[in-house]
């Protein structure tokens, strides 16, 4: 190719740099939220004790002798595992929500709207009802079952949209909605036909972290890590996927393969989140949108920051859920729905306005 004549030294564009600064600020804010969440609870424990325990655990020295055993238990065996699990689940929902939105080119896509979470909870319900033990050492059946359920839901939705002539993602979205409703109905039937004591199952489906333990976080991390690595790896490709499919292909994107990788990864993360915390809606919707409003459409920024925002949001929601009517707790899903529903309406109105303006 002939060299193009440069029109001068004007540098309108500057090279992308990874949004480290934003990510670091985000992590800092999230860490502050997490520490506050550890410090605040139904039982008053001086903030000093939290740091004392944290440092003694981090650096293996015996610094927390002055603490009563009960405050040690409350901090280390109740609040910390709970906050950590909320961070992991929030991050997973944030990242997978952003991925689904990017993939379906629909700002309202959310693991709960496209049937993934319903499929995952159907899978987990089956495990619940068969009475199989959930965990074998560090292997847990629950995320595997929910992953199968979630993936089956997406796959069936995908087949339906494929057979309808094309793999237009809007068809996929609608099919996902239908499959999700179907899975929810099956879950309902299973529950109705089962043993009368549904409290554990229902309480689990409602979502929450009341049973959070350290080993839940440990079990969750591999699923989350695998999903995150693939999704972040594909984040630049996801930008290209914002064009129509043939246009993306003309830019060298293997659209079918990208869809497969991203759907499987996002479903894996959603399912792991569902299996450890039940159904918690709106996190995957809100987090990516806040980031989009702040920092635009580049998925290399949106994806990691959605994870961070989701983590912070869910930790704060859980903090609210467990302290607002202390000593009793609310299901965290109620809090996320209270914040999320108005936000959802706002998005609906906004997208309607965009259409009316002819864009």
């Amino acid at each position, binding site marked *: 190719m002939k060299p193009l004549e440069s029109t001068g030294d004007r540098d309108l564009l500057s090279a992308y740099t990874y949004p480290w600064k934003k990510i670091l600020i985000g992590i800092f804010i999230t860490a502050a939220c997490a520490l506050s969440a550890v410090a605040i609870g139904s*039982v008053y424990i001086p903030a000093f004790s939290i740091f004392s325990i944290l440092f003694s655990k981090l650096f293996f020295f015996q610094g927390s002798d002055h603490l009563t055993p009960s405050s040690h238990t*409350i901090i280390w065996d*109740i609040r910390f595992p709970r906050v950590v699990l909320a961070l992991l689940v929030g991050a997973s929902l944030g990242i997978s929500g952003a991925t689904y939105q990017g993939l379906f080119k629909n700002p309202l896509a959310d693991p709960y709207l496209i049937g993934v979470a319903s499929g995952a909870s159907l899978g987990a319900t089956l495990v619940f009802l068969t009475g199989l033990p959930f965990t074998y050492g560090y292997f847990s059946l629950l995320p595997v079952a929910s992953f199968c359920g979630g993936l089956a839901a997406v796959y069936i939705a995908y087949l339906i949209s494929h057979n309808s002539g094309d793999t237009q993602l809007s068809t996929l979205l609608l099919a996902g909605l239908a499959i999700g409703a179907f899975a*929810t109905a099956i879950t309902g039937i299973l529950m109705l036909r089962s043993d009368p004591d549904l409290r554990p199952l229902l309480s689990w489906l409602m979502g929450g972290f009341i049973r959070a333990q350290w080993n839940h976080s440990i079990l969750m991390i591999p699923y989350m890590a695998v999903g995150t690595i693939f999704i972040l790896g594909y984040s630049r490709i996801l930008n290209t996927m914002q064009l129509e499919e043939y246009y993306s292909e003309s830019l060298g994107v293997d659209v079918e393969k990208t869809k497969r990788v991203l759907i499987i990864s996002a479903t894996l993360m959603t399912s792991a989140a569902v299996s450890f915390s039940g159904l918690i809606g709106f996190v995957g919707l809100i987090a990516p949108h806040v980031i989009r409003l702040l920092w635009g459409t580049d998925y290399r920024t949106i994806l990691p920051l959605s994870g961070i925002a989701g983590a912070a949001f869910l930790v704060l929601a859980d903090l609210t859920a467990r302290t607002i009517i202390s000593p009793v707790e609310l299901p965290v899903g109620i809090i996320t729905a209270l914040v999320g529903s108005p936000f959802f309406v706002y998005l609906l109105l906004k997208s309607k306005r965009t259409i009316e303006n002819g864009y």
Partner: protein
Amino acid sequence: MLKKILLSCSLTIAFILATFACSSTDPKNPNPAAPASTPLPAPTKTYNQLLPATPIAAIIPTTVLKEIGSADKKGKRQNKYFPVPTPEPTQTLVAEFPLTVIDRNGEDIVFTQPPERIVAYDAAAVETIFKIGQGHRIIGTHSWVSYPAEVANIEKVGDAFNMNIERIVALEPDLVFLFYPTFKEELEKAGLKVLLLESVDDNLMKMANTFRIWGQITGSPNEAESLAKNFENRVGKIESVLSSYHSGPSVFQDVGDLWTPGSNTLMGNVFNLLKLQNIANDVDNYGQLSPEVIIDRNPQFIISSNPELIYTNPAFQNLLPVKNKSVFKANDDYLGISGPRFILGVEDLAFEFYPGLFK
């Protein structure tokens, strides 16, 4: 939506005793959680003021049996006992018809003769009717009723969530008994006679009255009277054994996922009778208690339907009942149904927690 419906329905069933509770305690001003040394507010007074020492009977032609704690038409709950004439306890009772029973909504339900074909949609009612020898009158119930064994031959016309109204109509019952109002209107529209009594939820002694009401309705007042008497005597015995005690040990009951009964529940009432200090005394009805609150309040006894979940939770390892492996497995068949066997569950607790006092 389904999730919420299922949850609310399940709570209705699961916490039979709680859902329609008339709160005798002002929720704005609940009893603060009693620290281990605080004496209980002399519980015996409560029963004696509320209930007559002697049973209902010797009824003049049109008997009015007002259900205790009935509601006015607006559904606002009152908590007053309708006083009735006092008979001689030894006197032989005669069933008198027509009989008027005032239902939960304050409406008069008139019986001209004992109903022959009863659909009793409530485990406690089924048990009571069998206990007073009138089980042959029951032609239908719901699928979760399993006691007494004869129930196996009685047609199941639905479960807690669904009622097969067509089937009920086809059975041609002359009375349908309900403990929750969901299907009342439909059944009445179908031309059936429906009796909706409030569940016994906040006052243990009301149970005896319910037995008597069933005795009147089914025309076997003597059997009902002796059942009620037996109940009252056994409660009285516990009361008198414990009368010299000012306050007993602290207790936490886990009915599943840390849901626990508060002071204004039937179980709260049982704890008062047993002079146990419920650590969830400040909970209104049933609530999911924060785990850290449980650790902070450090109960001396734990009652759970699934002790394994308590034992395996790392956060609870320092609680005395966990250390001693002494979490008491409650018999849900007894304490879950406010019928004739309920007192057995109460006595189990008395034996368990005061091993020296009760034989």
